[in-house]
């Protein structure tokens, strides 16, 4: 055998040796990988099932949310009905109240007239009787005054009830605001369900039933940032924008192209100042 050939064989043996050494080092890692995959497969399957179950329940959650909106609307309408009843009764009480106050004044005026007639009829010979009648008239006046004072307190209470009723009516706007929030959440649920459904289709879970689709509302818009804020801050922001835009009339609005970039406020202000002579 030539020495050149022998050297080639030795090189190959060295390469094999390196391969064996590499194999020896890699085998434990491969073993670990094997155990890991063995452990992870059931977890992944469980995850798939869990995603499938959650996705399957989404239409129900969505429909329950929709039901919340519908039921709160019914309840709000019932509250509004009751408030209308209260306000209508208050109107009635107000009317009776005005009549009662006017009657009190009439009684006092009539008493004055009766006393004047008695004084002229009985004359100077019956001073004692007239003094007693006058004292009684004064006592009656004092009672009438007490009645008026009580009535005034009652009137204040009625006004307070009216203010509270109006306040409740303002608060009931929360129904519309929560409806917007719920519509936004429902939209999010729909989007997630769509994504997960297509993922599940790819996994092809055995024995899995077809997932029901969430019933889509007709074409609609909703406000994902709807908030119940009675501080008036949001209204002040709107007022400020309107003031700065110099709007307030159809003519002016139709003459102006409003840039959509909110950052360019100075530019917008300048633009609107030009046409803001009125």
């Amino acid at each position, binding site marked *: 055998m030539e020495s050149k050939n022998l050297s080639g064989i030795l090189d190959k043996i060295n390469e094999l040796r390196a391969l064996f050494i590499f194999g020896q080092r890699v085998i434990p890692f491969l073993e670990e990988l094997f155990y890991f995959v063995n452990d992870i497969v059931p977890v992944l399957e469980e995850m798939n099932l869990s995603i499938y179950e959650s996705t399957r329940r989404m239409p129900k959650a969505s429909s329950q949310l929709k039901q919340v909106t519908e039921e709160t609307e019914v309840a709000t309408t019932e509250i509004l009905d009751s408030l209308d009843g209260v306000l209508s009764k208050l109107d009635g009480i107000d009317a009776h109240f005005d009549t009662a106050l006017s009657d009190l004044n009439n009684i006092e005026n009539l008493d004055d007239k009766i006393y004047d007639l008695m004084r002229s009829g009985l004359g100077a010979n019956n001073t004692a009787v007239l003094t007693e009648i006058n004292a009684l008239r004064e006592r009656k006046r004092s009672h009438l005054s007490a009645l008026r004072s009580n009535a005034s307190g009652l009137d204040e209470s009625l006004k307070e009830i009216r203010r509270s009723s109006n306040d409740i009516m303002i608060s009931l706007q929360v129904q519309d605001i929560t409806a917007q929030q719920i519509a936004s959440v429902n939209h999010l649920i729909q989007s997630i369900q769509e994504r997960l459904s297509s993922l599940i289709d790819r996994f092809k879970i055995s024995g899995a039933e077809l997932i029901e689709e969430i019933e889509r509302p007709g074409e609609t818009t909703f406000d994902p940032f709807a908030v119940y804020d009675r501080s008036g801050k949001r209204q002040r*922001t709107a007022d400020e924008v309107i003031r700065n835009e110099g709007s307030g009339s159809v003519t002016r609005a139709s003459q102006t192209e409003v840039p959509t970039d909110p950052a360019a406020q100075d530019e917008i202000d300048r633009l609107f100042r030009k046409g803001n002579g009125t």
Partner: protein
Amino acid sequence: MKFLVVDDSQTMRRIVYNALKGIGYDDIVEAEDGKDAVAKLYVENVDFIITDWNMPNMSGLELTKSVRATDQFSNLPILMVTTRGMKEDVMEALHAKVNNYIVKPFTPQVLKEKIDQILKTL
């Protein structure tokens, strides 16, 4: 003066209706969305529109654009009453040519103030 109140929420229509009555306006018609409102405009002699923004079928913004694009109604005052309170929303509404803007929740005083402001500019 005849008002057209447009809102898909029955609650809100009722609240606006009551608020309008409270400030002395009795002639009020209602519509459930923009489409319904457009139909009502042709049969009712409406002088003033109060509309919500977010509604099915036709939004308040689309209604505003449609009204402004129709010669017969283009000068009708439009007051937007909505939950949308971002600066960009108000700009968009102004761009669509609404006359004024109210953010929910509102008080009858604010409603009166905005109606008066609009009527003053007509």
